[in-house]
């Protein structure tokens, strides 16, 4: 099975080179059979990677410790789901996993476009194969996943206990799908540049792909945050660590791209900008992998500091040179066909949204590479910590939030006073009202008040949009309100799905604001029977109890939680000692309510005195991060779901802002 895997990899490498050559050559000499052969090579490459992956999975599941990879990342007692997860637990496996996703996507693209986009397709397959070839060369020559050990150990080293967690099982796959998904719009963009077909065909073709990639990037970041919160035990969910930033940066440019393509579709403008965004997004996914794999930037959670860095860097430079080179070559064809009409228009709101997203991305990039840059320039490594990122991004994020409220209701081209009065005034007043109520209620944190007020503005605009749409349908076809709401969304999924996503984003902003402005933390060392207060809770430490299992030994602190004199719950923050490999971990205990989480960590325990250090956090509104994420997932489904061909409502139903973009 193992040899089958290695052979498949090598054969596949040869095939990929064949495919890269054939498709564009076929297009150049106008030979359909050459192009088709290149596409078939893509499918064959996909088949080979499935074989190789199946071989590695087989090794993991059957605990074949003669394989170095299996011996490193698995063990015979590891639960099955983590044996499978070990596929992306180590470097060689994760590169292979990356390839599975990439070639699967390439195969889907080929199958989807058998009869469509015939001019673009040869270059699309070639681009995707070039990217695969890079990763393929890695797994063939640099970090082979099928390396054998000289001796066969009795038992494997096991997967790192920190990774043996539900969220960590699904976090890397979603992030990978998101990263790899960005290659598809990039490949179409390159094909559009190569063929000179620079109308918006490539953008329309890849809209769903982009949305899909964005969706998985969002999920990946969200799962990562959730994992950090539940497993790492420092009371927060985001630390601006280089590894986190690596996943966040492509999300930012991808979000910008999703918004700015609407301008291109509607006004035929911003073609160069969109091209830049799609290229940047792709490069950032490679840069992200480079960051996590090269150890160039030291991160508290640094991965393998392997020799892969230079390869990634070279690929990054070559890809950047090729992509931007192509773009400059075609610059004349990318000229805009329209001009902006007025400073007060939806176009401006979109443009500003883009500039800010890219600005945040740049700030995050700068903060991440600052140690390296400062070492080049001044010879001393200087780091900037989380305060830098928060300080820079908080005001930018708030402007973005404001634009989320303004964008959907301000008129295209040129906003008039009546448009502003009709659509913008009331949500603004509502937001001001929210701010005033909070101020009167005693809130004195400026940032928090502004943020909550802006959340109010966005929710008000979105509610207004839904309300007006429903009312219009009711008036025109006499439907009941719920039917009208469902049909309204169904009629223009892209628009209303987008609004639902915005609601999710607002919920997340509630969590960001709650946790950054009102978080409470208390670290205390107590004797059994001692009580202490945090927030409106009173906590009593009742000593520890020990437990033991085959895999893990436990040390559990019993903490009785009182609220208003009543015992509401007993929380048990733990220390665990994994026996193989020997490693302690901290398990937090959380009491979640809609308003806030009470989050307890057993910091240290002293056997002779039975004293324990307990760290308690109150994290206000943190639950909204997860629920906002769920709303975002729902909104994306609404948007991405195929539109039914026949409309169920009469034409000319309510459409504010004169949205003439055809619904997808």
């Amino acid at each position: 099975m193992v040899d089958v895997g290695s052979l498949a990899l090598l054969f596949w490498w040869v095939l990929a080179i064949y495919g890269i050559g054939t498709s564009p050559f076929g297009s150049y000499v106008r030979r359909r059979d050459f192009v088709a052969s290149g596409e078939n090579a893509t499918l064959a490459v996909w088949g080979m990677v499935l074989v190789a992956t199946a071989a590695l999975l087989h090794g993991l599941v059957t605990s074949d410790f003669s394989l170095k990879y299996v011996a490193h990342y698995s063990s015979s007692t590891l639960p099955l789901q983590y044996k499978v997860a070990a596929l992306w637990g180590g470097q060689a496996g994760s590169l292979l996993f990356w390839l599975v996703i990439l070639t699967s996507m390439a195969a889907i693209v080929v199958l989807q476009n058998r009869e469509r986009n015939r001019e673009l397709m040869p270059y699309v397959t070639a681009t995707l194969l070039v990217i695969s070839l890079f990763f393929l060369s890695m797994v063939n020559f640099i970090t082979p996943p099928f390396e054998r050990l000289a001796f066969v150990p009795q038992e494997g080293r096991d997967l790192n206990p920190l990774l043996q967690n539900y969220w960590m099982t699904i976090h890397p796959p979603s992030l990978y799908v998101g990263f790899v998904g960005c290659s598809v719009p990039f490949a179409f963009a390159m094909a559009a540049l190569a063929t000179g077909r620079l109308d918006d065909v490539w953008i329309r073709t890849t809209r769903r792909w982009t949305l899909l990639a964005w969706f998985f990037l969002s999920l990946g970041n969200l799962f990562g945050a959730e994992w950090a919160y539940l497993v790492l035990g420092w009371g927060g969910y985001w630390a601006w660590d280089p590894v986190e930033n690596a996943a966040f940066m492509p999300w930012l440019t991808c979000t910008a791209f999703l918004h700015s393509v609407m301008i291109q579709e509607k006004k035929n403008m911003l073609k160069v900008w969109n091209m830049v965004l799609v290229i940047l997004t792709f490069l950032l996914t490679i840069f992200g992998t480079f960051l996590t794999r090269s150890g160039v930037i030291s991160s508290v959670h640094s991965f393998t500091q392997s020799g892969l860095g230079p390869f990634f860097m070279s690929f990054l430079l070559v890809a950047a040179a090729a992509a931007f080179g192509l773009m400059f070559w075609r610059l004349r064809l990318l000229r805009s066909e329209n001009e902006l009409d007025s400073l007060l228009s939806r176009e401006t709101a979109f443009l500003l949204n883009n500039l800010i997203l890219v600005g945040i991305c740049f700030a995050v990039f700068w903060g991440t590479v600052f140690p390296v840059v400062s070492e080049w320039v001044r010879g001393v490594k200087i780091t900037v910590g989380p305060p830098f990122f928060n300080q820079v991004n908080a005001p930018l994020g708030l402007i973005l939030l404001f634009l989320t409220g303004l964008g959907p209701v301000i008129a295209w081209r040129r906003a008039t006073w009546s448009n502003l009065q009709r659509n913008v005034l009331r949500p603004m007043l509502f937001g001001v009202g929210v701010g005033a109520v909070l101020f009167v209620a005693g809130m004195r944190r400026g940032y928090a008040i502004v943020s909550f007020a802006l959340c109010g503005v966005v929710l008000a605009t979105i509610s207004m949009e839904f309300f007006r749409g429903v009312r219009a349908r009711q008036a025109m076809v006499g439907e009941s309100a719920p039917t009208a709401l469902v049909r309204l969304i169904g009629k223009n999924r892209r628009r209303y799905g987008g609004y639902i996503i915005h609601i999710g984003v607002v919920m997340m902003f509630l969590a960001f604001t709650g946790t950054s402005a009102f978080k409470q933390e208390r670290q205390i060392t107590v004797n059994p029977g001692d009580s202490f207060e945090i927030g409106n809770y009173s906590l009593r430490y009742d000593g520890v109890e020990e437990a033991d299992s085959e895999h893990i030994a436990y040390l559990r602190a019993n903490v009785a939680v009182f609220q208003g004199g009543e015992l509401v719950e007993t929380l048990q923050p733990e220390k665990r000692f994994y026996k193989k490999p020997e490693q302690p971990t901290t398990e937090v205990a959380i009491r979640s309510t809609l308003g806030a989480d009470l989050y307890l960590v057993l910091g240290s325990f002293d056997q002779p005195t039975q004293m324990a250090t307990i760290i308690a956090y109150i994290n206000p509104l943190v639950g909204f991060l997860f629920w906002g994420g769920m709303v975002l997932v729902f909104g994306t489904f609404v948007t991405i779901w195929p539109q039914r061909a026949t409309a169920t409502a009469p034409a000319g139903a309510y459409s504010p802002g004169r949205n003439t973009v055809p619904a997808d």
Partner: protein
Amino acid sequence: METKSKFLVGAALLVGAVGYLMYSGVQQTAMYYLTIEEFLAQREVYADEGVRIAGRVKPGTVAKRMTPSGEEFEFEIGDFVAEDEMGQTIPVYYLGVTPDMFKSEGGSDVIIEGTFRDGTLVAQNVMTSCPSKYEAEDGTGYPAEGGTDG
């Protein structure tokens, strides 16, 4: 003013604002990040400044004591000249909670944020930098072969 130049002015303002935010952010939060070697070479330069130092805990130097205000740690960090051999070290004092990967027998690779004062590095924060979250150090370490490198 022409619409186009209005846009350019607007964009320039925005770029300026982002630039300013970044500049002041760096000014306020920058911290020297040094290896223990670099620090030892110029320790008087960095005295009383916020520093972030990467080093290894010298085996056998960790002393800890539970006090009513928390757990107190005293240990030494140095550079890793070779396996089981440490160069010059500096003492560290820390009151707080150490991360899971911090081993009380020493030998952990740590990143310490703190201030060097009167010959002691007073730590605000101790982080462990596992050589890799995903990959154990190479060499030994298969349970059946006896002896792990932890």
